[in-house]
């Protein structure tokens, strides 16, 4: 960790509001986008990002001097998402109709030249598949592929072992592939048109 970051964390731990503001400004974007990918919608991302930083603010004075700030914040965000999903009891459930209707209702013909539309629908489909994944699979895939973290970093955030993360990632990819391919033929047409995935 950079010296400056250590110093900022140290000040924030002592209740320095400017230091906390600095931390917030550095991480608000990454944490917001991470939560957005986990929860799948902007409204939840907005609310849970607030919750995450409020929890961080409360907890900072009780953290140790060797706090790894980034992993710690992602852990709080992860737990915040988990708690919210548990509260709603939808961790493993997403209506399949939502997935298919959202995608296919807007699907364009295979030879449609509007690439932007295709791009948008592809991304929407990817997010919908993520939403369909079991929560832990989703976490691992987002942390690995979207955040670019290593298995070790993910293990640190999730509080599990590196080998467990590797196993989760494998199963997540398999599940993602299975769901994605279940969208055929429409999705495959779009993806084939774009040549970007699967």
């Amino acid at each position, binding site marked *: 960790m950079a010296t400056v970051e250590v110093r900022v964390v140290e000040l924030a731990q002592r209740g320095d509001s400017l230091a906390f503001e600095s931390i917030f400004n550095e991480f*608000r974007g990454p944490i917001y986008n991470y939560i957005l990918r986990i929860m799948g919608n*902007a409204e939840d991302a*907005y609310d849970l990002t607030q919750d995450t930083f*409020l929890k961080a603010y409360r907890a900072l004075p009780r953290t140790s001097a060797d706090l790894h700030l980034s992993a710690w914040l992602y852990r709080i965000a992860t737990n915040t998402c988990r708690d919210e999903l548990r509260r709603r009891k939808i961790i493993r459930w997403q209506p399949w109709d939502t997935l298919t209707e959202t995608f296919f209702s807007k699907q364009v013909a295979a030879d449609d030249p509007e690439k932007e539309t295709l791009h948008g629908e592809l991304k929407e489909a990817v997010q919908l598949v993520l939403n369909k994944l079991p929560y832990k699979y989703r976490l691992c895939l987002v942390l690995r*592929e979207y955040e*670019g973290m*290593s298995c070790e970093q993910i293990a640190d955030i999730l509080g599990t072992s590196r080998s467990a993360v*590797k196993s989760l990632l494998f199963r997540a990819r*398999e599940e993602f592939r299975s769901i994605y391919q279940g969208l055929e033929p429409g999705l495959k047409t779009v993806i084939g048109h774009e040549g970007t995935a699967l």
Partner: protein
Amino acid sequence: MKCDRGLLSDYRDGELSPQRKRALEEHLGVCDECRKTLRDYEGIARAIRALPRYEASDVLAKDVYAGIKAERQGITSRFGREGLPRFGALAAVTLIVILAAATTLRNAPSLPTGLQAGAPAPIRTQDRDVSGPAPIQFQDRDVSGPAPIRTQDREVAGQAQVRILDRESSGQVAQVSTVKEPERTNPPVVIASQPAPVGRDRQVAEAALPMAVAASTPPSHEPVGAGPRTGNEVVAEGPKAIAAQAPAAGPQGSPIPLASPVALNPVLSPDKTGPAQAVAVSTPEPGRVVVQVPAVATLESTVALVPRTLEPPVFTPTLRLFSIVAGVEITTGTPTTATMPVTRGLVITSTVESAR
């Protein structure tokens, strides 16, 4: 090697040993099915990586600040977008109250604290008179953000002073010095309306209000910050010079306890020992406030003084006009904010960045 999709996943994550990696790559050279699986995994990675990233809006930032402010004020309800109007309104009301207080008190014959106020005096900055409340200064933008005070020296031992300098004009606005007193048995946690505690090596932070001596200040009033200095003097850089006239007090040189308790802003000490300390303030003479702080004080502290009738500033206070740096060590407890009934509509708070 047999087909093993688990290995392909590990390969994708760079989790294979060089030996296994080499063996898998040889297998990939001859197995169409595994090559296709690996392409699928890479496609998943590309698809997820291509998901858009958004800026977290400033509205979100304001909501977070509002939530933290509510937290510090003991409001436990969930904050969110629905909470913004409430907190926004609160902040607006607070600002109005502050400005109104500044205007009203400036013309008031006496202060509600019972202290005798001097003749109405203009609010002054270091280098000019202003006709209304002192301008609100923020560090780098309109929302909030403390102007950090950076001490240049670190140690305070024996006779020491802290001067807070106006950022623009380099005028002193406060100082800290060590005062020797004959005896003390308990830490000087002081409650208002009681005499100031006595104690050995008690540190006293003196803050001059205003920075520019105002009309009610006697000509003999010692120039702010012109007291005895030592080689341990610490020079701090404070927020832009903002000042209001402090009320006239009793006989000059006789500290007058204020009518309300004054608490320190919570600044945890590095060693985290001892209880949180409160301080008392007094006004030994017009335009000067003395903050009495415990002997355990260090420069790692912030003293925040806020008019009692106003909302105390919390996280990223809206108003950050004046600061008193005192060697006070707060070690435990929930963040609190000092309150002080003598300043005229000014919120006084800041953050000290210093180290031993």
